[in-house]
């Protein structure tokens, strides 16, 4: 088991290194000078000399491999460098935005799984039944609807017409004056629409996947054996089919991290959510390479961590794998 994890960690490290080299090259070879002043008024043009001095000061005149080496050696000391936009440490910039994104992604994940699993179980109990058919149709339909459209409709209905939920943002103006419990409730209300938008694409996918796995488990001998022992369909489903069907779902969970990250870029923009997705978009626009490198690294780390966690959980959950790992010298 430990060996397996160690090997997995080594693979992750190599992958991460590869990702950083690639993204570093990509951002440095992409057109657009981060220090170039945007085109402007007649007397404001910066002299080429002044720009050259600024570039030298920022280290842009050195060969690429040296710049990468510098970035890497700083990284080893836990330093992600400074933003080219405001000169502030990248680590602080990301840290300030990360909690909002994690809360949103966490809420979306809970929502997606919390709805997908019960629905999948009910569908698998009555394959071809009304819920199964109707649910399939409905989820396929919403799966194909783009997020920005859904978000607009939800905003119109729940924030503008019904006024049940806030339009955007993380907290109300009044929240500052509220008791802690009130603030929490206010925050939760703000979370509903963005989390729903981020969750629904996954929901369809998870539901179908879980249902297929449950149905497969239902056809296996152990299920028939459980029924023969006198368990009801429902009991057999929950106690025997579900644990077996969960295994592949664990792997899927690791892979949802990139999808969540991509979705958050759009959702954060529409709902004025102050997370890293918006920082990413702003940084691309300003060619803020150090911040982009920091965000890429974060994304890669989270993805790798998600997959690693899935692997470990899978090994822990599957007695066959566990035994294999122990038996191997």
């Amino acid at each position, binding site marked *: 088991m430990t060996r397996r994890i160690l090997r997995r960690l080594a693979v992750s490290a190599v992958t991460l290194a590869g990702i950083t080299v690639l993204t570093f090259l990509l951002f440095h070879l992409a057109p657009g000078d981060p220090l170039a002043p945007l085109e*402007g008024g007649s007397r404001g043009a910066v002299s080429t000399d002044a720009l050259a001095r600024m570039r030298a000061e920022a280290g842009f005149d050195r060969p690429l491999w040296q710049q990468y080496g510098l970035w890497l050696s700083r990284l080893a000391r836990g330093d992600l460098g400074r933003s080219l936009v405001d000169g502030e440490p990248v680590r602080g910039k990301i840290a300030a935005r990360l909690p909002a994104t994690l809360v949103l992604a966490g809420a979306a994940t809970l929502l997606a799984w919390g709805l997908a699993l019960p629905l999948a179980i009910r569908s698998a109990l009555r394959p071809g039944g009304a819920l199964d058919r109707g649910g399939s149709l409905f989820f396929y339909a919403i799966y194909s609807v783009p997020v920005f459209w859904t978000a607009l409709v939800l905003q119109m209905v729940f924030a503008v017409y019904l006024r049940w939920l806030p339009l955007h943002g993380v907290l109300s103006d009044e929240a500052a004056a509220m008791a802690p419990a009130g603030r929490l409730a206010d925050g939760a209300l703000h979370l509903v629409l963005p989390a729903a938008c981020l969750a629904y694409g996954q929901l369809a996918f998870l539901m179908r996947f879980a249902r297929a796995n449950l149905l497969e488990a239902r056809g296996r001998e152990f299920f028939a054996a459980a029924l023969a022992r006198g368990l009801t369909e429902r009991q057999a489903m929950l106690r025997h089919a579900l644990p077996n069907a969960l295994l592949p779902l664990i792997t899927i969970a690791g892979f949802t991290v990139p999808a969540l990250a991509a979705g958050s870029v759009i959702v954060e923009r529409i709902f004025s959510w102050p997370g890293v997705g918006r920082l990413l978009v702003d940084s691309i626009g300003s060619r803020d390479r150090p911040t982009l490198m920091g965000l890429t690294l974060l994304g890669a780390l989270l993805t790798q961590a998600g997959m690693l966690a899935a692997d470990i959980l899978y090994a822990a959950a599957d007695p066959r794998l566990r035994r294999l790992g122990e038996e191997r010298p």
Partner: protein
Amino acid sequence: MSRRVPSRFFAALALASGLAALCGCGGSSSTATAPGAAPDSGGVPLDGASAGPPERGDCVRLVDTADPQSLNFIRATDRFSSQIAGLVTDTLVQYDAKGEVIGRVAESWSVSDDGLTWTFRIRPGVRWQDGAPVTSRDAAYTLERILDPRSRAVSRIGYFTGVVSVETPDDATFRVHYREPSVTALASWTDAPLIPRHLWEKQADFLDNPLCRAPVGCGPFRFVSWDAGRQIVLEANDGYWDGRPALDRIVFRIIPQDTTRLQALELGEVDALSLTPDQVATRADRPEFTRRFRRLTYPLPYVYYIGWNMDRSNPFFSDRRVRQAMTLALDRPGLLRDAWHGLGIAAASYITRESWAYNPALRPIPYDPAGAAALLDAAGWTDSDGDGVREKGGVPFAFTLLYAATGKMNDDTAAYFQENLRKVGVRMDLSRTEFRTMLDLVGSHRFAAFMSGLTLDADPDAFDMFHSSQARDGNNRVSYSNPEMDRLSEQGRREFDPARRRAVYARIQEILAEDQPWTFVSHPLMNVAIDRRIRGVTVSPLGLQQFWPGIAGWWVPRAEQRFPAGAAPGA
């Protein structure tokens, strides 16, 4: 003088970025009208008749699309940051609502007879928001930071590179020596937001300094908080030397999506918003909208143009007749009517009509496809093989127009012009690229024609755009070269006599109309909706802000105030 960081200016316009428009630029009040009201005269509050003495209190909520780059006012290049700088701190001199330079922290100034030395007298009793007095050494420190390459003050350094040295003989005297006389030296100081030396010098690092996130200034509002990605809160500075502003608070909300911004306005979460042409066309004319919001329409000191590359890398545009034909063939009036919903003024020059330097004899060049065809024939571009595209010496007249993917208006405009040119036998392909990529291509002269926009200074100085020496690194990307233009654009920078200076720029505009190095397409119009409870709103030649008093002059009658003291957002 404008903030030359139109940053994503046209993008912002196209997306109708929230206050990006409300801030910096604007146009003359002479064309600013509130629906249902007569046009106002220059610099007069739009609600002049109903205005009593300003009443204190209330909070105004404005909006922008993204966080400011930094609240290090020297380093930041974006409009939002300049806007905060204009409220939190002060400058030596500033424009007033009529576009004239007035003293702020400098109570007076003088220039030596040779035009090389400017002396500013610092107003007594001006204090930083921590209580320390503002002295000449703060002004010197501000300039020093602008000129230091480590500050990366790319949007400000260009105004001050002519400075040789400064002197601070006493706390009240600030003397600046220039390399050569410059008409625009004084106005440059409207763009140098003062920063407190005694606070900044506590930390060695100018870019990673707590003051970059929590600035201290000497302006009418003091900084309260910046919640990244959410909002920035300012409150009235009780100790302001020119009297406390009327508003208790200003909150800048950050809302990236234009649809969300409009809904936030209609839900009463923000008080003012710059509208997209589509929003104007579909929502803002409804009575329930105009009942709550006053609409302001005013031109921007900004020109939208197409530049024709004359560096001989293409066989077309070095010929003046071809450039003239291009302008005649492009249906600019039709574009403004059909695609821009009327939100632009046909341009005859880079200078807007509201400027003193505008040549009133100029008329926008009309749409005349027949005239264009005749000029192209005369230049030897004819469709001899009948395939619909003109050619000369076997080379077809086909080129690519480069433009930035910053919004629907850019796309619509490019497509409209493409069709115009097809009708006169010219094939124009479109290359739509990301904004900074376009700047790269244009800066390195890798284009035949490009479409873009330029935020203009209040001063008509044309050197950087049209002097032949500026083809490599300046804004003369099209490699335009005309000896008379070179001579006049140099003369315009040195001519202190207003009448003679006006004559120089009148001639410069005639030459441009004749040579057409750029096709001047339009001066866009801003369209702003603002809550009717807010009074004291003035549109200056530079817009709703970046002049004194700007937002510091806004107020709300007590009976209509929405936020009693202490209940304002962000309190």
